[in-house]
């Protein structure tokens, strides 16, 4: 391949990688549909909040989980009827399969009956959280 063409391919590769990065950043933290999933509080050995619960799925080695933990804990403490519970998936592949969790942190917004109303992959955007909680 000629050096000029190779340089063009390398530049296109850089452009492609940048586009992929921007797309992933956009999708991160957005509110998504919860589908027909239901969360069983027995999996976390905790009770659900009266209005809604923020269920955070973490693993031991997750770089952004401490940040999300602080965010959700602070958010839940601002609202009386919200609870924040955390589920550790490090040794529970059965749970990650059951709830279709492919990355951590993943956050579910679960209503009082256990239905998953919204999910967030990555660090949730605060405004997306507020919208989702308002819709419960």
């Amino acid at each position, binding site marked *: *391949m*000629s*050096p000029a*063409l*190779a*340089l063009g*391919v*390398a530049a296109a*590769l*850089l452009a*492609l*990688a*940048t586009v*992929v*990065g921007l797309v*992933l*950043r956009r999708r991160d933290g957005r509110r998504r549909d919860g589908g027909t999933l239901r969360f069983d509080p027995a999996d976390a050995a905790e009770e659900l909040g009266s209005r809604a619960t923020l269920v955070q799925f973490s*693993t*031991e*080695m*997750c*770089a952004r989980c*401490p*940040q999300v933990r602080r965010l959700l804990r602070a958010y839940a403490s601002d609202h009386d009827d919200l609870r924040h519970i955390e589920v550790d*998936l*490090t*040794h529970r*592949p059965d749970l*990650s*399969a059951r709830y279709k*969790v*492919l*990355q*951590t942190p993943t956050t579910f917004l679960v209503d009082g009956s256990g239905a998953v109303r919204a999910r967030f992959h990555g660090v949730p955007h605060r405004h997306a959280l507020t919208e989702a909680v308002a819709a419960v």
Partner: protein
Amino acid sequence: MTTPAGIDPRGPRFAATITAVLLLVATFLALVGISTTPSGPASFGWFAYQPLANATYTPTGWAISSAPLGQRALDPGFLLTVVIALLFLWGVVSPRTAPWSALFRTLVRPRLAPPTELEDPRPPRFSQGVGLFVVGVGLVLHLAGVPWALPIATAAAFIAAFLNAAFAFCLGCQLYLLLQRIGLIGRTAPAA
């Protein structure tokens, strides 16, 4: 296994930046090297010379398939990728002494404010292993004479390193659950 001491998260990203640059250069070198070169002209004539009358020439082949092993190994893209693979290996075996990590600690970090948060060192170390695997496959296929294997492997590794450097996207962290489901890592709790 207890959680190891946290590391400054900017260290792995600094290493990923240098690695991404090296991989982009390696991709360029691989593209202009023997990996992508189509075959040259036939080494025999077209006359009705009986001993060669049944010889066939396939102009659509690749030069690397007929090149000797030494020529494949001396390709500049291959040599740079070997260096990159050794750096990945160093990062897996001993992350603290690895060159970019040591460079970060001695030259870059003293000039920065202290980190606001520390991260677990295992995901970046795992990512080094993923990088080693990807470029390793490219190196082996290149030596085996497979055309285009080397630039494709370095391009894939470049995308992962670039995403980590520019967007703090940790591919290893994303892969963990997937690999756990397949059963390669982390299925059983370690003895406390």
